């Protein structure tokens, strides 16, 4: 059993939890993820690692309520435990594995979208700890749904906030902010790392291709075991099929087939919708929504 030590509401149905998981905390690296299974009958849910502390033996996870399982997960309180918590899974971020001299030559821009801000944080923090200055953009629809701003401020050389409605920071989305920095302010980046919703990563990849800047994205497809066994997380990357869980989760954004990845991610949407309805309406749900057989 893996105990929840802390729970915090961030914004926009996004929750943060500290979980006691010494084995994972000890070996975790930026870019990796975990799988959580709440109880006997729960799903295996792949989740982003936001932080980890080997001395305390804790791992910080951040998740957004998107379906019945994550909704149920948000109802857990500190002191309660998850039945299963496995990780770290996937490969560490390519940048943190680079020889230090080479990394020092890089000029890196991180672009975060929504809950994707959480997995960027440990990467930016790692860079700061290794004496490398990085710029970070947090993009959001509006001011109220921005997460981890204060934490990111401490680790980024320059933090740029972009909101679609202009309620805070730059008015525009992440791509607009990249354009502003590169085209108008003449900033030079050798690499962009984008983590967020697939559609956001798709457009950042398209833009960086146009700008001639290599882009790394972190993919979060459907998966079951997370160790390479099921193949549910397969992606078309260039002319190869890759498994996000063992080959990724980070890939060259210029090579990922995002349209296919988005279609694949939607595979169980109706199932999840049904589960959500059952949860919200219980036995009173009598069909008629068109999603029921």
């Amino acid at each position: 059993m893996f105990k929840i030590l802390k729970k915090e509401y961030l914004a926009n149905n996004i929750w943060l939890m500290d979980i006691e998981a010494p084995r994972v905390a000890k070996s975790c690296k930026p870019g990796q993820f975990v799988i959580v299974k709440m109880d006997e009958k729960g799903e295996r849910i792949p989740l982003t690692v936001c932080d980890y502390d080997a001395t305390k033996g804790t791992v910080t996870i951040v998740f957004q309520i998107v379906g019945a399982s994550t909704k149920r997960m948000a109802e857990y309180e500190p002191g309660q435990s998850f039945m299963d918590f496995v990780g770290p899974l996937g490969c560490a971020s390519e940048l943190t594995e680079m020889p230090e001299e080479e990394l020092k030559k890089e000029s890196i821009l991180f672009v975060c979208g929504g809950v994707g801000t959480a997995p960027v944080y440990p990467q930016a923090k790692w860079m700061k700890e290794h004496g490398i200055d990085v710029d970070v953009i947090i993009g959001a629809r509006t001011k109220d749904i921005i997460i981890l701003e204060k934490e990111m401020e401490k680790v980024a050389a320059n933090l740029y906030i972009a909101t679609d409605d202009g309620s805070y920071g730059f008015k525009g989305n992440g791509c607009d902010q990249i354009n502003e920095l590169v085209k108008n302010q003449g900033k030079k980046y050798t690499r962009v790392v984008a983590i967020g919703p697939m559609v956001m990563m798709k457009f950042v990849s398209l833009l960086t291709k146009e700008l001639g800047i290599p882009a790394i994205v972190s993919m979060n497809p459907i998966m079951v075991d997370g160790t390479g066994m099921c193949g549910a997380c397969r992606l078309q990357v260039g002319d190869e099929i890759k498994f996000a869980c063992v080959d990724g989760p980070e890939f060259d954004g210029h090579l990922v087939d995002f349209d296919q990845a988005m279609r694949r991610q939607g595979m169980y949407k109706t199932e999840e919708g049904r589960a959500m309805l059952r949860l919200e309406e219980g036995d009173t749900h009598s069909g008629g929504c068109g999603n029921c057989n």
Partner: protein
Amino acid sequence: METDVLKRVPVREQEPKVRAANFEEVCLGYNKEEAMAEASRCLKCKNPQCVKGCPVNIDIPAFIKEVEEGSFDEAFHVINKYSALPAVCGRVCPQESQCEAKCIRGIKGDAVSIGKLERFVADTARENGIKPVKAETKKGKSVAVIGSGPAGLTCAGDLAKLGYDVTIFEALHKAGGVLSYGIPEFRLPKSTVVDSEIENVKSLGVKIETNVVIGKAVTIDELLGEEGFDAVFIGSGAGLPRFMGIPGENANGVFSANEYLTRSNLMKAFDDSYDTPVCAGKKVAVVGGGNVAMDAARTALRLGADVHIVYRRSEAELPARVEEVHHAKEEGIIFDLLTNPVEIFEDEQGNVKGMKCIRMELGEPDSSGRRSPVEIPGSEFVLDVDTVIMSLGTSPNPLISSTTEGLEINRRKCIVAEESDGSTSKAAVYAGGDAVTGAATVILAMGAGKAAAKGIDEFLSK
């Protein structure tokens, strides 16, 4: 009970029409009288060939003699000296090509039904609460076993019986490996059979730590170093599912057999009270002809689908056990033999809407001795399906080999290990099962686990 010595006592099964709609076990096994009658058919050969056909060399005539005399507990203890998983083996071993293939009784009549007798003994012991005997003295040395599938459980059980302190590390949340995630409930019941055999291994003193991915959370070198284990056995299993590489293979509704079976068996997607879904499909094609393909097809059938097996060779070459093919046919699965997929069609939403196939004919034998299938030009046709399950075998998982310095792998990326004792190129590290051989059978993995336990014992006794 009257017995015709040339004919085996038939085993009771669920009716095909009934079982096609449930996940209960197909084979119901022998009762006491049937088992004793079948046991009486054994010739108790002085030089028993059946034992030579068994990868773990169970003293078959000895346990059958106990059954014949009604000493079922004794029969269990005989088997348990050789096998930690008799209830599993009695169900999933290919006896027809191993022990039963060598049975002298089988020369003139039916071979003795060794598998069904083994199953009877194990099931009876479970019902009577008989447990395996624990080691009397401790060796004071510890072994880490990676993977809790048939190879790992066997190796762990044997080492524990010898007095070693054994910890199994399992990557998934549940122990059992392929016995839990791969083989379906209707062939191998989980809560009764698999879980209780695992409990038996635990009762020998074996500890099982789930949710630990070796190669990620801990490396082999760390197990031998800071974690203080004296030896390691790698029984991490087969690995990554293969796909064909044909157009449309990433469409929604194309699954690996591993995914389909894991969702159903491990995550219990067939049971509505569990959260994990499975897109069961209404018209399903399973590509491949092995036991895993039969399992996937029969699972899809039970989830309500019309199911086709698409296999590029003919019936004679089907790698699946005859019994599985027979059961699948009885249940109404359609076999499209000498047929190979060439493309999967998808609709605007990316869902499977059909699979283009081509007819094949058998040409010259290939290196494996099987006649290789050749396409018949112009014979393409479209199979109307909404789901495709690829059951084409697996390729080794790199998690351990890529994180363990000095562990040799072969051209196929399988771990290189001696067949006789499981030793690898790295000192104190042993391996066996699918991680070494590529996808094979439960009993071969158990045989390798057993050989490695012996190898580890010799190494640690030096």
